C-alpha cells in the first residue's frame, strides 16, 4: 500500500472520531482536544453529550450573556443547556459512567499500549503534582473508549507502544486510536490499522514497535 493523502491535523482527527460515533449515542468528550469532536457532530447526529460534573444534554460553549457560572463543563468552561437536558449529582453522574451506560468516551493520551492500556493522567516526572480527575473512571466506564492523539511525541517517539512507560490510567480499555497518521482499532486479535493519512502501511510498521494488522481495505 502506498501513502494515502496527507497527515490530518487536530481538526481532521476530531472529524474522524465524530464520523465513527453511532447515531443516537451518549458520549463523554474528555477535556482538551476531545472536546473539539463536538464541532463535527451533525445537527441530526442524535448524540447526547454527558459532562461528568453532572449533566446530560450539554450544549456548545457559552458566550456573552449565555455565560452562567453554575453551568460549566468538566473543563470548567461555561457551556449551554440543550432541550431534553438533565442535571444530577456527582455520584449519580459517575454511576452513569461507571455503570457502563455511556456509549462512547473520547480521551487524549500520553501513550496507548498494544493491549489497549491507557496512560493519560500523569507524566510520572519527579516534582510533578499529580491530578487524575475523572480519567480513570472515564477510561473504564464507557462501552467504547476512543483515544485522540498525535502518533508521535514532539521528539518523534511513538505514543502507540508495546507497554506504557508512563503511569497507567487503566488497563485494556482503549478500543480505537485516532492519530494524525493513522486510525487504529485495538482488537482481541491485535492492533488493526483502519485508515492511513499520508503514510503507507509499511512506513507505519517501520515507525512503530507494535505488530500491526492491515485492515484498511475493510
Amino acid at each position: 500500500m502506498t501513502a494515502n493523502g496527507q497527515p490530518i491535523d487536530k481538526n481532521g482527527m476530531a472529524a474522524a472520531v465524530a464520523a465513527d460515533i453511532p447515531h443516537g449515542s451518549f458520549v463523554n468528550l474528555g477535556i482538551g482536544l476531545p472536546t473539539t469532536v463536538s464541532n463535527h457532530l451533525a445537527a441530526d447526529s442524535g448524540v447526547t453529550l454527558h459532562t461528568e460534573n453532572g449533566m446530560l444534554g450539554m450544549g456548545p460553549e457559552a458566550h456573552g450573556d449565555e455565560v452562567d457560572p453554575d453551568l460549566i463543563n468538566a473543563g470548567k468552561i461555561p457551556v449551554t443547556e440543550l432541550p431534553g437536558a438533565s442535571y444530577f449529582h456527582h455520584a449519580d453522574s459517575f454511576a452513569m459512567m461507571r455503570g457502563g451506560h455511556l456509549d462512547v468516551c473520547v480521551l487524549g493520551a500520553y501513550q496507548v499500549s498494544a493491549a489497549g492500556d491507557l496512560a493519560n493522567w500523569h507524566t510520572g516526572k519527579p516534582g510533578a503534582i499529580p491530578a487524575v480527575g475523572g480519567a480513570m473512571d472515564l477510561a473504564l466506564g464507557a462501552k467504547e473508549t476512543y483515544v485522540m492523539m498525535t502518533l508521535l511525541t514532539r521528539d518523534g517517539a511513538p505514543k502507540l507502544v508495546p507497554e506504557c512507560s508512563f503511569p497507567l490510567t487503566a488497563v485494556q480499555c482503549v478500543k480505537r486510536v485516532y492519530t494524525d497518521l493513522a486510525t487504529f482499532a485495538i482488537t482481541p486479535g491485535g492492533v488493526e490499522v483502519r485508515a492511513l493519512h499520508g503514510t503507507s502501511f509499511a512506513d507505519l510498521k517501520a515507525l512503530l514497535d507494535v505488530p500491526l494488522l492491515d485492515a484498511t481495505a475493510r
Partner: protein
Amino acid sequence: MVDIVATAAEAVAGIGDGATVMVGGFGAAGQPVELIDALIEGGARELTIVNNNAGNGDLGLAALIREGRVRKVICSFPRQSDSWHFDEKYRAGEIELELVPQGNLAERIRAAGAGIGAFFTPTGFGTMLAEGKEVREIDGRQQVLEYALRADVALVKAHVADEAGNITYRKTARNFGPIMAAAAATTVIQVNEVVPIGGIDPENVVTPGIYVDRVVRVTPREGAER
C-alpha cells in the same frame, strides 16, 4: 432539625482545629465561598479538606489554603492553571495530598452517607492509585476495594432552601452538594433564597431536610449569579 441562621459566621461556628471538612463545588460552580470566608475568619487550623480540587485562583478554598489552615487535601484534581496556592504549599511540603479518582471520590462520599463501609470498583485497577489496595475479580473484572469517606462538617452551596431544610440546587452547581450533605456529621448550606415550608414541590427536593443542620442565606456576589 434545621437552624436557619443569620450569618455565615454562625453557620460555621464550632468547626475546630483538626476537623475534616467536605467543601462542595467543582471549580467555582457550587463552591460555598462565603462559608469558607467565615471558616477562615473563625480561625480553625490543621483542617483536612475534601473537595474535587485544591483551590482555584485566590478565593474560597484557595484562600483557606493560602492562609495555611489546611493540613491535608483529599481530592481528584489539584493541579490546575490557577492552583498556585496549593502548588506552593505542596512543593514546600506543607500540605498533604490524598489523590482519589473523581468517581471513587464521589462514590466513597456517597457510601459514607448510605451506610456502606466499603465497595469494590474497577476504577483504578492496575494503576499507582490502587497500589497496596485489596483487589478481587467480580463479574469477570478486576475490582479494587475502596472505603467510605466521611467528614465532621460539610459546607455546601445550594440554590433554595425551605424552612424545613429541604434543598434545591442550580444546574451543574449541584455536583458534590447532595452527597456531601449526607456524609458529614454536621451539614451547613448557603443558599440564594429561603422559602416557607411548602415552597418546594416535594417531587423536586434534591437534599431532604434530614441531612441539613444549618442554612444561611447569602446575598449573591455581583456577577456570581444571574
